[in-house]
């Protein structure tokens, strides 16, 4: 009984959203195979992005909302590849090669900023993402086409000012998914994409066992003690953010090659919202995250995305309700997960205190008798 209780308490966020999904499935009127094939597709598309959040959480920096900087770098890489007419898998490789140095630079920058905002990394990272939007728009709309010539008409805005708002990625679409595509019954499985995700998992597992990984775990728990033990806390935190940013860059490229088109100035922001929601729903907290959390989270969050808008639409008999429902779910997941987590922390602290108090009281009582 106690075990059940503590299991529920530990996984409250996941359980709540699992319940919502289970309730929403019949209302959505979707078939099981439709949901599953959609889930496979979306899992391949977006789990890489979510992995980007693990390391900063491990290093005690909370959810790295500044990962949109990495996503931006990936998009710049894709713009470059598309503009230079590099097609297929090679186009994706080139986009990645262009994106990585950019994301290292941006990650280093955001690491610096977050180090100066200790204790409020999450909100600062969030705003940093918006700040970057401004820089990115300046780059995309004014630098591109002026200092950096745009070569391809499909990339340019109709009026000639910079990169257009919606970019067709037809030439690189499926550049990863379609290398080897396995048909299993009604489902098609992008083998190479899954292989890449598997390699990433292995990387994370390996990384946790390295010295740097160990240092990140240490500073994630106790910055002061780690510093006293001689670990360079600031640098380790920056490295966590840099790796996170690079992973976000690659993740965004994988995500967009699957979608096949890109909203040049807003797609990166979606990446941040979505990844945070996924990892939180998967049971991660702002101080603890594992690969398991990512997998559960990605499945659950997409199940929510697929079913709840339709369920909302069916329940309220309005298409617009469904539309707003998905946005509400997205923000609501993050808000409620953060609240539940903070509340749980507070309760744990209160309980610890109460324990101490009870023992003190018992002693006092004993002392009183003696």
């Amino acid at each position, binding site marked *: 009984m106690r075990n059940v209780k503590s299991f529920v308490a530990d996984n409250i966020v996941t359980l709540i959203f699992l319940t919502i999904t289970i309730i929403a499935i019949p209302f959505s009127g979707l078939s099981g195979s439709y949901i599953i094939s959609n889930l496979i597709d979306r899992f391949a598309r977006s789990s890489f992005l979510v992995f980007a959040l693990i390391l900063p959480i491990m290093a005690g920096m909370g959810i790295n909302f500044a990962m949109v900087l990495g996503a931006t770098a990936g998009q710049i890489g894709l713009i470059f590849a598309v503009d*230079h007419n590099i097609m*297929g898998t*090679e186009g994706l490789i080139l986009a990645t090669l262009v994106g990585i140095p950019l994301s290292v630079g941006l990650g280093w920058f955001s690491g610096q900023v977050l180090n100066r905002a200790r204790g409020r990394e999450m909100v600062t990272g969030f705003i940093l993402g918006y700040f970057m939007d401004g820089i990115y728009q300046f780059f995309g709309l004014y630098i591109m086409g002026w200092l950096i010539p745009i070569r391809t008409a499909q990339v340019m805005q109709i009026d000639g000012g910079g990169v257009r708002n919606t970019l067709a990625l037809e030439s690189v679409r499926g550049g990863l998914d379609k290398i080897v595509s396995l048909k299993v019954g009604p489902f098609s499985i992008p083998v190479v994409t899954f292989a890449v995700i598997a390699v990433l998992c292995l990387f994370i597992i390996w990384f946790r066992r390295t010295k740097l990984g160990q240092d990140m775990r240490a500073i994630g728990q106790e910055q002061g003690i780690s510093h006293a033990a001689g670990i360079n806390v600031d640098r380790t935190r920056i490295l966590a953010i840099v790796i996170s940013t690079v992973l976000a860059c690659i993740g965004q490229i994988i995500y967009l090659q699957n979608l096949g088109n890109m909203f040049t100035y807003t797609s990166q922001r979606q990446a941040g919202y979505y990844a945070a929601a996924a990892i939180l729903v998967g049971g991660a907290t702002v101080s603890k995250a594992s690969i398991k959390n990512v997998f559960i989270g990605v499945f659950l969050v997409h199940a929510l995305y697929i079913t709840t808008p339709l369920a909302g639409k069916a329940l309220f008999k309005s298409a617009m309700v469904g539309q707003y429902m998905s946005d509400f779910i997205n923000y609501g997941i993050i808000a409620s997960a953060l609240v539940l987590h903070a509340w749980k922390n507070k309760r744990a602290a209160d309980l610890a205190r109460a324990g101490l108090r009870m023992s003190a009281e018992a002693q006092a009582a004993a002392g009183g008798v003696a």
Partner: protein
Amino acid sequence: MNLRSLVVKITLAVVYLVLAVWAYGAGKGYPLYIDNTDLSKPTMLSVVIDGKSPVRVREGAYTEIMVKGARKHTISLVLPSGAEYRETFRFPAGAQAAEIRVPELAPGSDPVVRPVLPRQDR
């Protein structure tokens, strides 16, 4: 930094650059114009390049299809009758684009690929 790590780092940098150059070269897309304007033998047809999804070319029209890399490609024409011709051709190195005329794609002969040169007035 010891010598070994220096060598590894330089190798890595070289691999990075080589990979970039290779991806750029091998992945570069070129427009290939399918010229179906010869009205002596007007047919609508489907063109399949490198096994990709077929593109329709109307009679008397030019169609642009992107091909990846200046290398060997296969092209096959599918006529409405269901007849299919399959040929290989080499994209001319150094050209910005190329043109293939449908009538010259007769069975049994190498397709004639004409490089399209940049216009002079540019």
